[in-house]
């Protein structure tokens, strides 16, 4: 009995020792990848840019930069090419000998060229299949050179990919671009009734760069960086290929219809006054897509309800008076519906891509009819009649009622 007990204990210990440790990795051996850029390379190859973090530089600070200390970059970009994405990643180890760790990746940037020409289905498979990759990093389109896009560190956020991640995280503040993460993107590619879209970023000149002498390294001041990252509207996809692009107001038009506007500001001209504008801040919005069949013709009624409050009035108007406020609300309605119509026009007229989810609404409302429509939805979508109803109301006028001008009269 005693011998058997010792034997069993021995077996358990051997079991843990012999089967353990195989996937053990020490943290300092890992290259934490925080962002990936994917673009096409000559010869049908794929080029990957992996942004690996230099952890000690981040924690101990890269600033300072006094005499004698070398300026350590908080990240490192490594580039490799390959026939497929994994092949390219394998080739990365030839550049730097560390084990790359992708679980903390926060952005996947795909070049516009790759997305337009080759489509991104081939890379989607990799992003979905690999257990180390998550579905929550943003999938975004990068315009121009990805190498320069991924090399724009901020002063506070030292890592470019985290900076881009922050841009995407705060998209609800303005609601003028619509990023999707990998998981959401995959879901909308797979859905037969709507098309994917995502945000676009590019680099642009930094306008706050000062020309004056004394703002450069020679005088001991780290100057403003030359370039900055600009988030520039929304890319529209058809299946896995990018087909076009919506600018900021059009992007919000898309989000109004999808009911995804949560914050942001609406700027519109005050009726009856020249070059005078009012601005409201969005409190909440909702949208309702109601399909209906009239004379065998399917149409959609989109009802968008928006609640806002006034934050700026340039004109000589007293919003404290109900009639005056009503005027502002009507102008606001018109502005919202203008944004929606612009988005609709582009999606229906130019790109033929149902990014709004109208197909899904019809599927829900008329499942039987949708079965026939599904196969030819691409052809039917451009001709779909969409009626837009905007019901917006200004809930309050913030701290004051009358502007100073109006009060003096």
């Amino acid at each position, binding site marked *: 009995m005693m011998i058997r007990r010792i034997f069993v204990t021995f077996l358990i210990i051997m079991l843990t020792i012999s089967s353990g440790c195989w996937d053990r990795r*020490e943290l*300092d051996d*890992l290259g*934490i990848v925080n962002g990936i850029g994917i673009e096409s390379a000559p010869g049908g190859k794929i080029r990957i840019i992996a942004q690996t973090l230099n952890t000690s530089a981040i*924690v101990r600070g890269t600033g300072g930069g006094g005499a004698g200390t070398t300026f350590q970059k908080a990240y490192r970009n490594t580039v490799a090419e390959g026939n497929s994405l994994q092949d390219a990643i394998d080739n990365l180890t030839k550049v730097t000998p560390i084990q790359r760790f992708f679980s903390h990746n926060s952005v996947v940037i795909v070049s516009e060229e790759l997305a337009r020409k080759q489509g991104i289905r081939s890379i989607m498979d990799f992003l979905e299949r690999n257990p180390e990759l*998550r579905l929550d990093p943003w999938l975004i389109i990068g315009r121009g050179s990805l190498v320069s896009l991924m090399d724009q560190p901020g002063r506070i956020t030292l890592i470019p990919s985290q900076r881009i991640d922050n841009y995407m995280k705060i998209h609800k503040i303005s609601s003028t671009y619509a990023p999707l993460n990998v998981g959401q993107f995959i879901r909308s590619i797979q859905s037969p009734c709507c098309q994917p879209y995502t945000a676009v970023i590019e680099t642009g000149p930094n306008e706050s760069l000062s020309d004056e002498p004394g703002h450069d390294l020679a005088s001991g001041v780290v100057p403003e960086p030359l370039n900055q990252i600009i988030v520039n509207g929304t890319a529209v996809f058809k299946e896995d290929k990018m087909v076009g692009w919506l600018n900021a107001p059009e992007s919000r038009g898309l989000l109004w219809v999808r009911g995804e506007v949560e914050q942001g500001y609406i700027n519109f001209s005050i009726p009856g006054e020249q070059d005078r504008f009012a601005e409201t801040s969005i409190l909440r919005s909702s949208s309702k897509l109601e399909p209906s069949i009239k004379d065998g013709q399917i149409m959609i009624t989109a009802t968008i309800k928006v609640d806002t409050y006034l934050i700026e009035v340039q004109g000589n108007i007293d919003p404290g008076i109900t009639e005056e406020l009503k005027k502002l609300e009507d102008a606001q309605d018109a502005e919202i519906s203008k944004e929606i119509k612009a988005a609709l026009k582009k999606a229906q007229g130019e790109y033929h891509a149902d990014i709004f989810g109208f197909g899904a609404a019809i599927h829900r409302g008329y499942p039987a009819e949708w079965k026939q429509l599904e196969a030819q939805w691409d052809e039917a979508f451009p001709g779909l009649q969409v009626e837009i109803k905007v019901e917006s109301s200004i809930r309050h006028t913030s701290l004051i009622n009358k502007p100073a001008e109006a009060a003096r009269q």
Partner: protein
Amino acid sequence: MIFRGMKRLKNISEKDGKINSGNISELLNHEILTPEQVKDIRVSSVLEENLRFLQDLLGHNKDVIIRRILIGTSPRIPSALIYIEGLADKAILNNNIMKSLMIEIPEESCGSDPLYLREYLLKTALTISNLKNTRQMNEIAINILSGDVVLLVEGVDDAVIINIRGHKEKAISEPESEILVRGPREGFTETLETNISLIRRKLKSPNLSFDHMLIGKITLTEVSVVYLKGLASPDLVEEVKQRLQRIKIDGILESGYLEEFIEDNPYSPFPQMHHTERPDRIVAGLLEGRVAIMTDGTPFVLIVPVEITSFLTSPEDYYERYYLGTLILWVRYISFGVSLLLPSFYIAITTFHQEMIPTRLLISIASYRQGLPFSTLLEALLMELTFEVLREAGTRLPRAVGQAVSIVGALVIGQAAVQAGIVSPLMVIIVAFTGIASFTNPSYNLGITMRFLRFPLMFLAGMLGLFGVMFGIVMIHIHLAQIRSFGLPYLASLSPLHWSDLKDVLVRGPWWSMDTRPWELGERNRRRQIPGLKPSPPRADKAGGN
């Protein structure tokens, strides 16, 4: 030789009361003699015979005092007082015994009738409260060795045992191992009688019972089983006594000796009984139907049976407001988990499951691990070991030096090791926090178990990651679910689950809500108090009615 000695001893006892062998001293050279062996020897009416026997038995030691006196004035009767120097109260001996016997005894009482003399001595002569008589030599020997004074009188075949034990003892002071902010400040001492009086003072019940027994063949340590009749299950009391009587050991120096002889699962790392220095804690246990075991010579009293949750309670929980009691109870539960699992979780997550760490935390952990020579497991083992060494050094050293150790420890381990790039600061934080969390454990013995179990868990974490940690946790749970303390399941109240007990396990319910005793223990007397004692302001209609 030993056998010969035994035979000789037999010869002594066979003569039935007649002592004529002075060979006991020779016997003592060869064998450990217990009073049991001289059980049958009776007191002789010849004083010198008795004295010779006792002198042989107790040895010609300096501290054994045989004071020969003559009682009365005429006739003067030879007699002797036997006691051990330092164990008997000399002032009482001089004033109340010797003075009474030698000077104050009236003439007529010292007649020739020994029977009358015996009665007179027992009932009139000695102004001592605690007196008894015996004819058994073994009892006399034990009582002398325990500090009583024995009076032997020529012609009387009976001995008077005078209890004036007055050895030097520590004053009642605050228990150092269990310090409370609010609560009684008295603790048990090393003297059983004092400890019994401390319990009596808190529990004035005729149901309170002390069952004495002597354990330890040589030390003859007095052990007392304490319980409340009618509350504690008689089976439990019987079981405790039986287990105690089974012990045949040379000596008992501390209640820890007993603990290992009477516990249910001798291989378990978990303590299966409480030890405490606090009378209030013992009384609380007795009121729940538990049994206490008091040992002479140590302030630590055992209490059985116990369940694991009671190790994590402190008497103060019950003295402070119940909100605070509950909060602190949960702080302890969490620290209990932390002190057991934090290092192994850290090892598992940083070496196997890096994807679980939030990115920013990962960056800072990774940055501090840059360039360290050891793997996380080794680093953790090293630091834990250092911590244990420091803790042990701090505990054993005199208090003044102990402070120096903690300063050196904190400086060397906390700072220098990090600066030298041997360990990461995060590991220092983990180890320090684990250590501090383990100090919240009010029971020292469960704390030792946690310290011990941490190491296998760390190995499992280092080899199998979280899977290994879970494996370890499951194994510990299986073990906890199967062990018992005097028949009480170790996880009692939680498993088997008794809803009514959770008022004292998951929360510290207010006293007016704790109407019932613990389910498993309070079988014989469920109710602690009448229900509905919640205080409320007098209502207006009621007041008006009165």
